[in-house]
């Protein structure tokens, strides 16, 4: 055989050899070593004896900054999205009028006082929908759970009357455009797609989040008093809030000692100073592999630079002067998390305090640094012993359906709550710094 070949990866082989190989050897496909093209920040963790990626929590650690005022920079999503939507293939209503419709079970419907929220946990999108549509979707879910025959679009038209067909059609167009529902083809499919089990929230650590506050009067040491205890409680996400001047490198060197913990990422809240300007910041990833976010308060401007790739650090600048833990607990739409762990957490526990622990500026061990009740002192007591106590965990059980106003709010499954500052200081009062009224559907300051 005299012919030549141009098979990628087989250049060193003769054509007579290459053509005798299995057919798919001629069609080698490009594979980057990692599935992602961006550099991924991995760190070797000697406790796990494995390489772990920098990962953020599925919910906010603290809620210090009023995120509404921030302009987002480096946001690449809009441009990219257009191409992506081009290739999506949509189901058509007119071809599926008499087939049962089914909400993808990764989507959750929360009925509010005046409107409902449809949460797409997979794509982390929220949609406001009228309560009528929420009712339709919920009724269908109930039928599926009770293993009763499911409705089709045509059944709905019969049920709601021809005069409403035009509105039903609009609803379905919205649902199909966003790939929120699909149509069942076979009888057995009606019992094949169970809803996601959100009745149990499980995670490895005793305490997921630790917030540690420090100011110029603090006499405890984060490095010597807190860090040696982090492993015992399994802490994965750490936020340190400095209410005092911070000198870069000198004051942050101790972060390298996190190598002996299971911490996956660290966020710092600190006063702005010159080295903190985005153009000046030079942080060596080798020295600070867990650092995921720096929030500078008292800055000359308001801006948020989102990390474009995992080797970047998210930089946040706010003109607010966040001088103490009393600034925490701000609830607004930026503090929502629409992922599955968050929804599971909110269904079973308090999403602000569950598996969280705070050390206040005096070194007192609390559910959160902004709360009054102290359970001990970081210098004298074991975090593990304290965090295991029923008294420490008692507020973990306050779910949204026990909280005034929140229980009829459409955001209750994705909201991160705040138990430190509540209306009239009540244990089960609405977060005092939440300006949302589910009856008027308006946000107020």
């Amino acid at each position, binding site marked *: 055989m005299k012919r030549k070949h141009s098979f*990628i990866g087989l250049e060193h082989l003769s054509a007579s050899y290459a053509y005798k*190989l299995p057919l798919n050897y001629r069609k080698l*496909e490009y*594979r980057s070593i990692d599935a992602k093209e961006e550099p991924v920040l991995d760190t070797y963790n000697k406790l796990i004896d494995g390489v772990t990626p920098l990962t953020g929590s599925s919910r906010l650690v603290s809620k210090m900054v009023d995120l509404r005022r921030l302009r987002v920079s480096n946001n690449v999503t809009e441009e990219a999205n257009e191409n992506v939507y081009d290739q999506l293939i949509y189901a058509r209503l007119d071809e599926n009028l008499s087939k049962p419709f089914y909400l993808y*079970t990764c989507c959750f419907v929360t009925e509010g006082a005046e409107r409902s929220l449809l949460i797409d946990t*997979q794509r982390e999108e929220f949609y406001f929908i009228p309560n009528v549509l929420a009712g339709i979707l919920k009724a269908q879910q109930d039928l599926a759970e009770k293993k009763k025959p499911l409705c089709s679009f045509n059944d709905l038209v019969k049920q709601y009357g021809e005069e409403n067909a035009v509105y039903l059609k609009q609803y379905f167009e919205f649902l199909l455009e966003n790939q929120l529902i699909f149509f069942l083809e076979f009888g057995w499919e009606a019992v094949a797609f169970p809803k996601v089990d959100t009745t149990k929230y499980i995670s*490895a650590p005793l305490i997921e989040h630790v917030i540690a506050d420090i100011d110029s009067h603090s006499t405890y040491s984060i490095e010597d008093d807190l860090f040696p205890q982090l492993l015992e409680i*399994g802490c994965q996400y750490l936020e340190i809030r400095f209410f005092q001047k911070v000198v870069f490198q000198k004051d942050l060197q101790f972060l390298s000692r996190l190598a002996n913990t299971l911490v996956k990422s660290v966020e710092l809240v600190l006063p702005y100073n010159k080295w903190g300007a985005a153009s000046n910041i030079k942080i060596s990833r080798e020295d600070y592999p867990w650092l995921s976010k720096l929030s500078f308060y008292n800055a000359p401007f308001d801006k948020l630079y989102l990390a474009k790739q995992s080797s970047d650090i998210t930089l946040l600048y706010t003109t607010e002067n966040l001088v103490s833990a009393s600034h925490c607990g701000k609830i607004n739409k930026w503090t929502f998390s629409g992922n599955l762990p968050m929804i599971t957490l909110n269904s079973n526990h308090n999403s602000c305090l569950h598996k969280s622990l705070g050390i206040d500026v005096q070194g007192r061990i609390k559910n959160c640094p902004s709360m009054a009740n102290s359970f001990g002192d970081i210098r004298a007591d074991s975090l593990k012993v304290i965090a295991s106590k029923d008294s420490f965990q008692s507020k973990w059980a306050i779910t949204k359906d026990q909280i005034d106003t929140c229980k009829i709010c459409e955001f209750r499954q994705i909201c991160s709550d705040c138990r430190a500052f509540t209306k009239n200081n009540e244990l089960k009062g609405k977060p005092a710094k939440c300006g949302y009224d589910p009856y008027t559907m308006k946000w107020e300051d």
Partner: protein
Amino acid sequence: MPDLPQALISRKIFINTLSYDETTNEVIRYLLSSGTKSADIIRLNLGNTIELNTYLLGTNQEKSDAEFQVNKTNQSPASSNSNTTKFKLSELKAYWFRKGDLGLKALSYLPNELPSQQDKNISQVLDREKKALKSHLNNCLTNVPKALDNLTLAQDSNKITQLEFAQKVGLQIPETLITTKRQEALMFFKKHQGKLITKGINELLVVAKGIDHYATGTNKVKASDIQLLPDSFYPTLFQKLEEKRYEIRSFYFFGEIYSIAIFSQEDAQTKIDFRNYNDQTPNRNIPFILPNGIKEKTIQLVKQLGLDSCSLDFIVTPTGEFIFLEVNPVGQFGMVSYPGNYYLENKVAEYLGK
């Protein structure tokens, strides 16, 4: 002096895996938080070696034991210190073959001399000796109280044998032809109206070119491909291209099956292979329950293959048929665990740690 109770001696967990396997990391996090000491977890990452220090077959079975040492090289770019962990077979309460290899040090004890043709014979025999030793050690590890899969089963896993077993238990499989003849390939192509794929019989070929990597995958067969085939060639697998309504990825764990449906057909990018992930608008992955008949047959199949845990792939066709594709003894299950809220890493840790 009375012997120590077995539970006190046997408390270590030995895991064969890769250093960057996040599933292993998460299982270890669960183990650490439920009381297992870091020192009692011995992780052998691919690339690190394990040395057999001694293996004594005593005159009575009680006295037989082996001592190993794992030589770890820190992966951190900042430090290159290595350390050594010694453990005895009798100290193990659990063994998990997650991924990787039992990288037993053998030939590298010898100085690296260029072998002559005659020396090649020596190294070939030595290599077979190592294989025999490794195979026996694998058997020993399988007898650890809590064993979860093993190297031999994972490496012997053969995709065509799986297809045959699947068919025998009554699962549908895509019609598959392995041939060395162009004429046969052509007839098969015509029989399925040109809807064929080709893939490796059991393995992927990965070719590194500088920093780039190229690999074989699953390819659609075109008419021109058949034309360009020589009359005879290396045994090649052709398979009917099954149309998909959605795909099923299942994780089998000691008789339980956890599944998700992957709606890869709603996106042109993932239509042929859902691993061409679309990060912006990911495929819908939702919990799925295998119909009872399929579930029973699947459990039968996995039991025949002798696996404790594995990943299984199915297709549901537009006409509602279930087609079995393959079993992966060391498959990823994070992608089943997370969207299904199944907490599979916790289940694995509970099994190993108890």
